[in-house]
């Protein structure tokens, strides 16, 4: 009703010439629209879009602290950074560790799905259980890292419990042992991430109509069979989203490492982003850091694409 009144009022106004196909009224709307958008687009342009372009270009230049303060001219060096990277032992160590870190993803996703199934039921107080599982997600990684550093201590509670149960004879140096350190840190990522992915899968589960599972039950399928052949395939969209987020997070892991091991022992927990920050902000070699960042970006995009291919087409059975 009101809409009709508004449009009826239009022809009454004197018709003016359209400029570039837009009437003066449309021009006004466009102007207003862009004024609303301007602050957000300006900030995103400067701090989100510009870095992608300039960052990629930076990887082709010699750019360090002296260039930044203007003491040295910007020098184009082509692919020299990428050639240097090929022979950089620490790059390969960091890349290897980051790739290993992605191993946390399948374990984390599988356990999160089970957790979501466990809390997807009507039980008194289930809300509080969900909250308890979610608390690590919102806790600062610095706090979490400090706690686990203490729990992992030689005379810490984990060693104490294992010794008390007679499972080990000597305390284990969880973060000091070169073979174990990366996995110890990965466990913290796992512990902190469970609740986050649980919520994603819970939403996915609640979107599944119960009829499918009931029908399978009627046909005599067991609980595991229903989960394996009905629930899991229907959860595929959630798995795609969650595992993509998780892979990207694993490739970009930084805070856990920085707080708990500082990249040690013997570079065994030095990951890509850790190395980028080290090159960029300890050595101030921005050009080389940008080249490393480009490699990491390429890796992230490739793995995301792979993830899409697997979960779009074959589904999880293609594993």
């Amino acid at each position, binding site marked *: 009703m009101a809409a009709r009144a508004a449009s009826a009022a239009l022809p009454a106004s004197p018709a003016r010439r359209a400029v570039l196909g837009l009437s003066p009224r449309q021009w006004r709307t466009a102007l207003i629209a862009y004024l609303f958008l301007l602050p957000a687009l300006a900030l995103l342009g400067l701090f989100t879009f510009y870095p992608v372009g300039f960052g990629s270009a930076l990887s082709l230049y010699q750019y360090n602290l002296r260039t930044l303060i203007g003491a040295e001219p910007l020098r184009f060096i082509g692919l020299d950074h990428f050639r240097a990277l090929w022979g950089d032992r620490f790059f390969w160590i960091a890349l290897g560790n980051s790739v290993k870190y992605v191993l946390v993803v399948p374990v984390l996703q599988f356990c999160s799905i089970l957790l979501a199934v466990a809390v997807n039921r009507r039980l008194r107080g289930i809300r509080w259980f969900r909250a308890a599982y979610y608390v690590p997600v919102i806790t600062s990684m610095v706090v979490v890292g400090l706690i686990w550093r203490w729990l992992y201590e030689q005379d810490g509670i984990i060693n104490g419990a294992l010794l008390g149960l007679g499972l080990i004879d000597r305390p284990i140096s969880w973060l000091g042992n070169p073979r174990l350190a990366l996995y110890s840190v990965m466990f913290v990522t796992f512990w902190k991430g469970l609740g986050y992915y649980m919520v994603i899968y819970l939403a996915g589960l609640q979107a599944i109509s119960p009829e499918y599972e009931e029908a399978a039950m009627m046909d005599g399928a067991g609980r595991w069979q229903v989960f394996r052949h009905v629930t899991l395939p229907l959860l595929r969209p959630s798995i795609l989203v969650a595992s993509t987020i998780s892979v990207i997070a694993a490739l970009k892991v930084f805070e856990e490492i920085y707080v708990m091991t500082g990249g040690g022992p013997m570079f065994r927990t030095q990951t890509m982003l850790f190395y980028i920050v080290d090159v960029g902000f300890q050595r101030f070699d921005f050009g080389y850091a*940008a080249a490393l960042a480009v490699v990491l970006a390429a890796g992230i995009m490739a793995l995301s694409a792979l993830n899409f291919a697997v979960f779009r087409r074959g589904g999880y059975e293609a594993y």
Partner: protein
Amino acid sequence: MRLISRRALRAAGAYAGLTALAIFTAFPLLWLLSVALRPGGRVFGFPPPLPWPLGMDNFVGVWRTMPIPRFFLNTLIITGVGVGLNLLLCALAAYPLARLRFPGRNLIFFILLSTLMLPSHVGLIVNFVTMTRLHLIDTYAAVILPSAVSVFGIFLLRQQYLSIPQELEDAARIDGASELGLWWRVMLPLIAPGLATLAIFEFVAFWNSFLWPLIVLKSPDKYPLAVGLLYLSGLFGHNTRLIAAGAVMMTVPILVVFLFTQRYFMRGITLGAIR
């Protein structure tokens, strides 16, 4: 009779399992709390020492002897300004995308969508260079500005604007409301639930942000809690109890906000992940 008892048994089993999982996820935080609450004695080892006698000495100690009040203030400033800017700028930007027709709208929408696929870590280096050029290194502005607009927030609020019935807008236009007046008086109140969700998410993100403040802040008296706490643990690593008390103080505000707004949280993640 037997059926009921079997049912009760199953419920008990479910609770036992859920409780065991809750211990797994919550235990480290409870352990931290117990360390912070116990003024003296052993910290490490198994079984964990009971937090008895209880005392607030560690909290008082860390507040008095370490620059924790300063870190708190810094965190409050960064978080307050950051959340405020996000609410304002996202609410402004989402409005025309949802409710005005203008050339370039779809293009802008897709450009924004593409940021969700851009690897954000490239920004670390370039934004540091930009901040140096703008002479903003070691300022709160350098910490806040790169995350002052969240694309997630724009999409979230756009959805909210889209759900407002056209009649309300038409009525306001007939009454002669200006575009800005319409946005402020009619639209903003109606997207309040979306604004609340965004505020909570940005609150947690700014409160916990670590890497970027670590890079752009040079003087410790500007550190937020996350950076400051780690700095203190480096300086006073042997004093586990005081650091634990600081960690608890950093975590409590987040937990309080979370417990009161749980529903918004769960909804926000779902929207963020699936969109």
